[in-house]
């Protein structure tokens, strides 16, 4: 039995907006699952339906196999960490953490023990007498987590808890959240818009867009085998390079004026001979090579960003980038002036300069292909 099971979960608001559409998801016991997607994709609404704070239009939410659609959020035994922490401003940290225990009429001594224990898990033992306004953002976030942990719930929900922290703190807190998750061990559903958080924290990651689940799998599978164009570009930074390409009858790829031999074309691009596909190349899959060698792409460097341990080399090739002609800034006139249409991650020891012409080796096994009409991945 999975700890959390969502089956065709749908939410349509009174104003007619469909926020979540037929979402299928399951979270195993003790698993840390991340729901990720751009703003407005329905991830928070889905989370709130699991909590019981939003009514369910159709579909079901089940805990350990038991459907909880009609169970009040009070009785679902879920704890939630809110984006803005939702701390009671007029209560001390001690009282904030203990609030839920008071409701359950836990005895005062037992309550005290649990509050102190939880506070030490999150590292707030010194702060118990302070009020939220006297705490920093990171400390408030930890109080919010402590408040959820102390209840020892069976399901843990987190709604973008790190979004309000500055970048450096966010990186620290990611590790904190995972550490807490390991010590508590409850099934956790975590919502974020940050794909880095999703990839680094999740046991499995669900990508959502406009209320529809795009793909659900381990971070590795999302990265190596994206199911569609959206997932391909959402995961991974910098974004995957996408171009329109033609598949010739012998299986090789025509990328603008260049050709790429495809040894495994037979299996992967079967049925697409003579047709157009979208080819995706991750910036990290381009390695600089000597010019003219087989299986290479030649590109004109436009701009090089130096990041320290690596460089981002923006280049143009004379293939049509996906987005089509007519996209702003992509018409022929500007292409001629050299607006870059691709980026590669190059080791900082390799000398790259704007205006040069470089060749990249392409590992054709790591190319991604997508159907231009449906956007779905081909050949996996």
């Amino acid at each position: 039995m999975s700890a959390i099971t969502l089956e065709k979960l749908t939410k349509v608001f009174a104003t007619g907006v469909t926020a979540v559409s037929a979402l299928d998801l399951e979270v195993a016991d003790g698993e840390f699952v991340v729901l990720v997607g751009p703003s407005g994709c329905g991830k928070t609404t889905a989370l709130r339906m699991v909590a019981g704070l939003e009514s369910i239009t159709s579909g079901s939410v089940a805990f350990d196999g038991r459907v909880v659609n009609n169970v009040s959020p009070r009785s679902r035994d879920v704890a939630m960490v809110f984006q803005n922490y939702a701390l009671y401003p007029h209560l001390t940290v001690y009282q904030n953490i203990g609030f839920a225990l008071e409701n359950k009429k836990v005895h005062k001594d037992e309550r005290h023990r649990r509050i102190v224990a939880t506070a030490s898990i999150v590292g707030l033992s010194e702060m118990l007498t302070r009020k939220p306004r006297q705490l920093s953002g990171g400390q408030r976030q930890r109080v919010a987590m402590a408040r959820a942990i102390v209840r020892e719930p069976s399901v843990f929900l987190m709604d973008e808890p790190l979004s309000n922290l500055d970048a450096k703190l966010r990186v620290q807190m990611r590790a904190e959240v995972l550490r807490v998750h390991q010590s508590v061990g409850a099934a956790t559903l975590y919502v974020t818009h940050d794909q880095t958080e999703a990839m680094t924290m999740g046991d499995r990651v669900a990508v959502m867009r406009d209320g529809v689940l795009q793909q659900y799998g381990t971070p590795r599978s999302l990265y190596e085998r994206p199911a569609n164009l959206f997932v391909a570009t959402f995961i991974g930074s910098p974004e995957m390079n996408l171009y329109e390409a033609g598949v010739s009858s012998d299986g090789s790829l025509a990328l603008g004026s260049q050709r790429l031999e495809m040894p495994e074309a037979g299996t992967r691009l079967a049925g697409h001979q003579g047709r157009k596909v979208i080819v995706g190349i991750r910036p990290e899959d381009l390695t600089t090579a000597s010019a003219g060698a087989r299986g290479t792409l030649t590109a004109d460097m436009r701009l090089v960003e130096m990041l320290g341990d690596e460089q981002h080399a923006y280049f143009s090739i004379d293939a049509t980038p996906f987005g089509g002609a007519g996209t702003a800034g992509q018409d022929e006139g500007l292409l001629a002036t050299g607006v870059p249409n691709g980026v590669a991650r190059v080791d900082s020891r390799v000398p790259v300069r704007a205006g040069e012409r470089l060749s990249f080796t392409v590992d054709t096994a790591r190319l991604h292909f997508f159907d231009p009409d449906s956007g779905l991945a081909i050949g996996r």
Partner: protein
Amino acid sequence: MSERERAAATVAVPKGRRFPPWPQAGRAQRGLGAEESRRERKRRERLEERDAAIPVELYGLKRGTIPLLTACCVLFAVFTLIPIVWIVINSTKTQANIFQSFGFWFARPFEFFHTFGNLFRDVDGDGTYSHWFYNTVLYSVVAGVGATVLAALGGYGFARFEFRGSRLFFAVIIAGLLVPITLVAVPLYLVYAKVHLINSIWGMIMPSMVTPVGLYLMRTYVELSIPRELLDAARIDGASEVRIFFRVALPLMVPGLMTVLLLSIAGTWNNYILPLIIFSTNNLFPTTVGMGLWLQHAGNSGDTNLFPLLVMGGLITIIPMIALFALLQRYWRGGLLLGSVAN
């Protein structure tokens, strides 16, 4: 293309992928169609409000709580409306009927228009109601507008400028709230006596333009709705302070202005003590003082037909205020008293 343009073009990085339009749940339903009518907009706002509120089921109420609470609300609504209903019904009665017939239902003869006509005549030598009404409108509108102007200027000045003594001045103004009316009205009368301002319209209007509450509201509103950066940007563009006030700040202050206007007009409209003290000629009275006078005389002498006039006069006094509040309702920012721009 010039060198500069070319250089600018080269650093552009492609943005915004277009994905093929495969079926997407949310956007299709969001139907960005033609402009909605006013009724549709209201309906949408009401639904959004309902979506934004916590559903009642989550409160765990026992059965019958909602009907019980609704009943309480009805009871209090009845309580609130009793005098209003009474005054509407009894404005149609003769004096005799006011006293003898059942208070909450009509009685013949139906004298509404007759009584209404009497409002325009000086029935008892105390003055004409219609004249009093005109006075009330005059004082309220002029004082209301004046108060709003002063409060707007002052609130803007206190909120967005720093000058020596600003905190002190503001504190002194707010302290004015603690002062009882008579401590100001009585000596005002004496001062007026010296400068011949007794029975002067301006003697009534000017003090009514002093609203510490209005100033406080405007200052709060300006602080919350006009970012300093906006004014600084205008200053950098070389605009004079006066121009900035009228062009940049004032349009943003409108809801606050409306709230203060409403409160000032209502405050002056309802004022009783000040005009009571400073006016001695009947035809300068506002309706409040006039009606008080009628009541005194009606209570003393026996054979006057003042009571229907009194009732009718009360009714007529109420109507414009209620209409004004209803009209300006959407500008009302009651939250200002609490320091927020909420409604």
